[in-house]
């Protein structure tokens, strides 16, 4: 019986070690992927990061800038802040909250021609929930309609 208990402890310890090392490897791997830096348009224009580096670009989507490229699945748009504007291309399905005039975080890298090539887009929701039928209303009309609905 004594041998069995010893074996049990050994197995337990071995499993614990494997789990611990596995967790450490995962953490290091995640940190390497996370080594992705955040830029606003002003910074990316002032000192563009090298093309090989994964960076995040955060800003507002410029009004009227979203257009579909000829291949039909890529889009081009402009991310701006008060001081600078950066053209961005993205291939894939855009999040439903990605609209002009609202905030976006693009993950990707700088292309050779000064265009930011995004691999992923993150959009953000605000606290407002508005039915689809009201989407064409202006801000003022919306507020009146919302006040009535309450």
């Amino acid at each position, binding site marked *: 019986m004594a041998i069995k208990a010893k074996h049990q402890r050994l197995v337990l310890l071995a499993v614990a070690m494997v789990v611990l090392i596995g967790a450490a490897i995962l953490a290091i791997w995640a940190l390497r992927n996370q080594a992705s830096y955040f830029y606003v348009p002003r910074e990316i224009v002032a000192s563009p990061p090298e093309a090989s580096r994964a960076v995040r670009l955060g800003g507002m989507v410029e009004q009227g800038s979203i257009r579909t490229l000829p291949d039909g699945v890529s889009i081009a748009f402009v991310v701006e802040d008060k001081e600078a504007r950066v053209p961005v291309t993205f291939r894939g399905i*855009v*999040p*439903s*909250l*990605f*609209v002009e005039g609202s905030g976006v975080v693009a993950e990707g890298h700088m292309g050779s021609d000064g265009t930011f090539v995004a691999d*992923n*887009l*993150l*959009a*953000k*929701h*605000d*606290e*407002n*929930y*508005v*039915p*689809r*039928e*009201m*989407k064409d209303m202006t801000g003022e009309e919306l507020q009146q*309609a*919302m006040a009535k*609905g*309450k």
Partner: protein
Amino acid sequence: MHGFANPARFLRIARWLMPLCLGVGIVIALAALVWGLFLAPAERLQGETVRIVYLHVPAAWLGMAGWSGIAIASFTELVWRHPLAGIAARACAVPGAVFTAVCLVTGSLWGRPAWGTWWVWDGRLTSMLVLLFLYFGWMALSQASEASDGAGTRAPAIFGLVGAVNIPIIHYSVIWWNSQHQPPSITTGGSAMSGAFLWPLLIAMSGFTLIFAGVVLARMRAILAHQQAEARLRRKALAQAG
């Protein structure tokens, strides 16, 4: 309050209150889900995915309410040594953890189409995940304390109180670290949510809350019955030994 200290009296009330809460809760929650999933409008930007909110928000509320229940019961346990307090805390843990998990899963499913990601380490998401782990830890501790011959309801009670720190953190996370999750739509000052979404949501929340209460009462009855059965077995064993 100590009027309910007598478990027999509590059981008399729970016997009819539990099926009432469960029955009414299921009817209300189902009605609200039908309203929300089929009749309520699509949202301007989110489209049809907005319908997840009718499950997500009630689950989030009950995940937090569950731990608030544990904290209040723990306080009652530590201060007044109320005999039902420890049982109430144990009864809150499993449904609280389940609703927290539902909240995380539905949020993730919504996040992919709406935000463009399943998960981000945003303050709200992270603090909610911490809540789920707190539930797991609490359940393990409570089970371990119980295994040590019922001597320790004190350790889980202290954990329950300390863990309650996370509840205001979850609530204010979207205001303190406004990164990915949107700020609250429903506040005491009013609602940034159109009535077309707000009403089915409020009704869903009340329905699921009644279901939660019914489950807690049912679990309290089950734990009490289990304790009575154990006590009876112990008495029998003693009688035979004597």
